[in-house]
């Protein structure tokens, strides 16, 4: 029996639109489990990223609850949410969003510096370890504008895990990358998951979804499918892809 790390109850998100309300997420109930690599899939405009940001507290839901550590993120103060972002959660964006005037190494360690429980030296050490792991050592003093998209995304992953978050959120992390860089990034995420990292990732790429241990399918703001998978093994990739494709087909993807 897995422990629930984060849950959503009756989660709704809507926007004012043309004088009315546009409902993006509609009464979503969901649980995320510790150690899972959960992937959210769905067609464009189905509300995948909106769900990711609502669950992570980056965006506030219109109604419902997002429970983390017995606390509702929907009603949590901005200050507490900020603390949560640099202690318990990590984020990876599709467009990397590295700070342009910080070096790769600085981009990684800056969120670590926000963590009051850790010393600057321990953060630097862990930053060095991550930079090594992400294969960025030779370019760690470069600025984001001086490196490739893949390198930027690897840096973004390192930045997201610098505080050893309990839950890592990734919004289409391979969306802006070429094939090779995508595989590198996915390998890193899989490796992190194998080491116990809980991940929630949004993607529309089946190659990325292959790494999941659980796939949720979203349509018109509702979860209509839930597929549980065994941990990823490279040699089973083909059969896994067939299985997922068949399942997505049943979802009319």
């Amino acid at each position, binding site marked *: 029996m897995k422990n629930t790390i984060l849950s959503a109850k009756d989660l709704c998100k809507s926007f004012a639109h043309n004088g009315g309300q546009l409902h993006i997420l509609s009464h979503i109930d969901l649980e995320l489990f510790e150690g899972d690599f959960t992937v959210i899939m769905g067609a464009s405009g189905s509300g995948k990223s*909106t769900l990711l940001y609502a669950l992570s507290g980056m965006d506030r839901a219109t109604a419902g609850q997002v429970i983390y550590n017995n606390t509702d993120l929907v009603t949590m103060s901005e200050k507490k949410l900020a603390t949560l972002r640099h202690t318990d959660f990590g984020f990876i*964006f599709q467009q990397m969003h590295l700070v*342009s005037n910080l070096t790769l190494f600085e981009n990684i360690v800056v969120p670590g510096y926000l963590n009051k429980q850790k010393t*600057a030296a321990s953060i630097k050490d862990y930053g060095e370890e991550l930079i090594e792991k992400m294969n960025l050592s030779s370019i760690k003093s470069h600025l984001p504008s001086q490196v490739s998209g893949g390198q930027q995304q690897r840096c973004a992953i390192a930045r997201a895990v610098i505080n050893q978050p309990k839950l890592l959120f990734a919004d*289409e992390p391979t969306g802006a990358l070429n094939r090779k860089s995508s595989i590198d990034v996915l390998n890193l995420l899989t490796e992190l998951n194998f080491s116990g990292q809980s991940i929630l990732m949004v993607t529309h790429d089946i190659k990325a979804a292959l790494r999941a241990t659980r796939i949720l399918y979203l349509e018109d703001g509702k979860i209509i499918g839930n597929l549980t998978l065994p941990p990823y093994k490279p040699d089973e990739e083909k059969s896994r892809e067939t299985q997922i494709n068949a399942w997505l087909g049943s979802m009319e993807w």
Partner: protein
Amino acid sequence: MEILTILKANIKHKKGAFKSVIILMFIITVAMTAIISTNDLTYKALKKAITEIDTGDMIACVDDSSDMETIYNGLSNNKNVASFRADDVLYTNHYIINGEEIENENSYFIAKWNSNYKVFQDNLHGFIEDPEPLKKGEAYVPICFQNLYNCEIGSKIIIKTNAGDREFHVKGFVQEPLYGCFFIGVKQFFLSDTDYDLLLKRKENTTDRKQLIGLGKIFQIFQADNSNLSMTEWKKSLNDSSGIMDNALLAESKETMIDYTTIFPKIGSGILYAFVILLFVIVLVIICHSISTGIEMDYTNLGILKATGFSNHKIREIYILQYMTAQLLGIILGMMSSYPVTILLGKLYLPITGILIGYGISFYKIFLLLLTMIIIICIFVVILTAKVGRISPVRAISGGAEQIYFDSRLKMQINKRMLSLTLAFRQFITNKKHYVGTLMISSILVFFMMSISLLANCMSSERFMESIGKIPSDLEAQLYFNKDDIMTELDKIEKEIGKIAGITDFNALSMEYISLDGVNIHCDFYSNPLIIEKTLIKGRIPKYKNEISITQIVADEYGLNIGDTVTLSKENEADYLITGLHQSSNDLGLCIAMSYDAYKRIGNKIPHSLYIKLADSSLAKKVTDFLNETYPDKVEAVLADPDNTQMKLIETIFIGISALIYIISIIFALITVSMVCMRSFLRERIDIGIYKALGFTVRQLRLQFSFRFLTVSAIGSTLGVILCIFLCPSLMKILLGGLGVTNFATDYTLGVIVVPVCVICFCFFLFAYLVSGKIKKVEVRELISE
């Protein structure tokens, strides 16, 4: 039409920059209009008032003991004189005004009431149409008495005469355009014919040597229309034909009197003019920043406009129209608001000049200046928008400007303990050029705030009063000794006082107009010429009998320098060697100084004023009583004015000007920070989102933003301090030259440097923190690309 549509859209979406230019132009217009109009109105009102009392081109007061026949004949036969008249006047040495006892040689004229002078209404808003003639016991006094002696209607004036005291009450305040200025030592007030005649009789009955009331004639001499002589030449001509200058107790040209009256408004205006010029430079810097960052941020939109057929010329036209609209709005609002400010300034000037100015705006002069400003700004905009021509529509549409690599040698490590500060510094370093404008503005503001603090400190200090020839003292005395006894008696007094309270400074002095190359010039002579040391700029003090010191203004006017020899004359003639240059405000800096021993070679006057600075000031009263009791007929001692009314008013004026400059500087800081912050905020919106996503709180981000402006303002302020150290003496020389101060003693105290720097840094930090409140509105979801 298309231009109008884009223009409207630009104004709607860039309200911040638009509003800033309006506010800045508004401030400049108000300040400029008010200063120019007030100055023009003051000059106009003063000229009118001087004409109304039929003032001559030269005013000379001559004692009735002089050879009047020679003077009358000399003036009548001088072809350079159109006409002249001589008005009777009494002058007094000892009087008590509203309880304040004053003893000063020939400093107050008493005249019969002349209805050509105007009497102020009680509220000082205008003049009484038909003022009542004075009755017995009543006096009309100049308006400056209100500040000098806290006089009100009904206040008591006692005139000491040899036949007893005469008491009068103030009936009203008059506009006295000749001697009514606060800073002119000589004053004139008016009595009824009966009182005047009574005082005259008391004067006539006096046989005492120490005469308290004197009779004189004030000559109003008009220069002939066909006379081509300069004022200096004309003065010489008058003296040659009549000897009037040699005999005059006081002789000044009408223009000099006007200069005296307007000297402080001129200094005040000079400061404000300089400030307005700097504000205009700031406006140019702000426009420069606004346009260059605007083009950078609107790169894509401008590319689209070009792709849709807008020529570079048309896009630049839009920019010009946009800034011109803002300027015109600011100017119109400024012109409308300047009227009450002009009235307010006029009221501020009234106690200083004694002149009630009318209402109005010097429209044509201001119109021309504003037009020049508009043209300069338009040329500036044209130059700055040249880079529009370099925008490529293809590149703009395909993703804007090229990637920018940030790198700098000044890179500072990001530090956990000072995270906000180090991140702020990094932001500043990597966007240096965006902060150049802010840096310049903060340095200009600090430069000016520091300069005004220096000026205010200097003007209101005892040191300044000393440096322009005022003698600091605990007590002052009028002396009535014989020429033969005076030096022996002074030695005796000095020794006696030394035993009672100790002496720091002891100086007996007097002044006289003497002739330098045939032209009258103010001369101060001292029993102890060491006092000149305090005002000496160059050379050495005139220690010996054949030596004098002159002011820089005299040196420039007569082409003289240290080492030159001049011929001076009064009763006798003698040659003197110039040994030094000193500064003095007497006669607006046109004066010379020497020892009493040196003066004795040409004149018969004796020192009549004694200034004593005691080692123990608390014994001043005891010493004063001792002198009055020991030398009842020879010495009349009084305690020096501890409040120093003159210094207090100067201090008040400069505190006012400083406050105004500080307030405007703070407004400018606010506008600058708002503008730059808003632009930075728009440019860094994504970065702010990223930082928020990483767990930075709004407060941390705002602090980071504010620290950046603190860094910029701190660097700018340092530059401002350096600028001030280099430029302030020259600026002050220009401003104070008219007052006779050619050597400005800058006193860089900690307060002078620290206060402006702290005010500017704090304002930049605070305003950046307030403006960055918008960070709250940045949502992390802006990073989402669905």
